[in-house]
């Protein structure tokens, strides 16, 4: 079998364990699904790191953080 399908099979097993399973099976399944999530975040960050415009992208991300930081009083005042 093509090796690119192996992660897909692992994911499928984790998916069914996490959503349909119970107890330890479900916990393990959900754990693997969350690891997949982390893997894709890592993949994206690595893509950004090697991107030819990475300084600009970092600058934009910092600006966005600045916008949210400036909105701290407003957002923190929003009750849940």
């Amino acid at each position, binding site marked *: 079998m093509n090796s690119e399908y192996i992660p897909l099979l692992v994911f499928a097993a984790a998916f069914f364990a996490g959503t349909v399973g119970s107890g330890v099976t479900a916990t393990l399944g959900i754990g693997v699904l969350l690891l997949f999530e982390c893997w894709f975040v890592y993949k994206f960050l690595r893509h950004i790191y090697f991107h030819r415009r990475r300084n600009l992208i970092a600058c934009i991300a910092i600006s966005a*953080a600045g916008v949210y930081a400036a909105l701290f009083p407003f957002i923190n005042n*929003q009750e849940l």
Partner: protein
Amino acid sequence: MDEIQVIRFGRLPLDSIARFVMTEHTAVPPLDYWNMWVWDKVVSLFPVSIWEYAYRVPYMMLHTLAALLLALVYCDMIEKRKHWEDSVMIWVGFLLYFFNPLPFVYSYEIRFYAMMLLGAVVVMALYYRNKLFSVSYYPLMVLFCLNSIYHFFILVPFLIVGMLKKETRRNAVLLYSAVGAAAITVVPFLYVPHPDSGIVATERIFSGLSWLQNFYLNPAWKVYAALSALLILCIVRTKRAVFFFGSALFYIFVVVILDMKYNYRYFGAKHFLYAIPAFTVLVYELMSVARSLVVRIGVVCVLAFLFLWPFYSYLYDTYTGKVLLAKSPLGLKQVFQYVSDHSVGTVIVDYGNATEEDIRYYELAISWYAPLYSKPKIIYRTGYVGCRVLTQKASALLYSVAGVPNCGEKSDWTVTPLFDSAMVTKP
């Protein structure tokens, strides 16, 4: 109130979260609650007074990520240009989506919306890079399906296009199968409460659509401006732009049909939220037609001034308390902070003549905030009798849901208006 429920479900044992979600929250798969299970442990390290902000941080990051990805998509749309032009294009693409009012407002909502929008953006970014049907991204697609059922609909137009092309047909079928299997598994999560027969679905659909129109296209001449832009699109005949326009219309159509079928109790602009990335890409496509950078920036400025800025003045009014929304604070943070600072033993909550449904919401919010700061005794009352109960109790405070209560002449009592509620304290 849904935000409190997300955190509460996120605090359950990991393996039982999905079971509770499928019977308590309408039509939501469990990924957002699993993520909250992790994030809740981080937030608990911070002081309670900033939890409202801390819980929202991951959603803000997701929105920033989505805006960045779309900016890169926009940058790739435009053919060779100078280095500095590249930078300007990325900034323009980023700002246009980042400050789009609806996604921005939902970027600090503790619900699945921010990730749903990121899901839509990821699909579009992969589509532009011809990687949507790459097997290595299938788990990502299915993960987004576990976050929101909207993702199933987001994928439909792309899968159809994939099926039509010979080179992607095989992988599109495989993705169809993966997403289909996920759909079957997710179906039990689609808990829909009993339809409210007292509400006419079509009326709510049209009020929801007119809400959306008022949001971006009010006054009426803006509708004509948008139609003119679409006319330009038809003349230019950019294949991808037409595809994204069709997709956006399909997304709106799906929401309308679903609402007619299930007769959801509430219907509003947020149900169309997932169509916004498609509309944004449409705007990028239109802008990419212009060769001059100045024209492109001019278009963005005009768009921002006409369609985005008016909403921010509306947001500012909600911030200053001139306009109150269902999302407006109830003043419970101040109430329970006061209770903690002054060691108040009893909080009397007077609901006035609030409806049973509103009372349920208030109770949920109170039961969340009360134990965070201190654990006072809570007495719930209806019928504006709070003042009388407050007179009888020592070390007590009155929280009146129905605004400033009429407590007669009590010179030593202090009344603090809290948005549309009020707090009455005595020495």
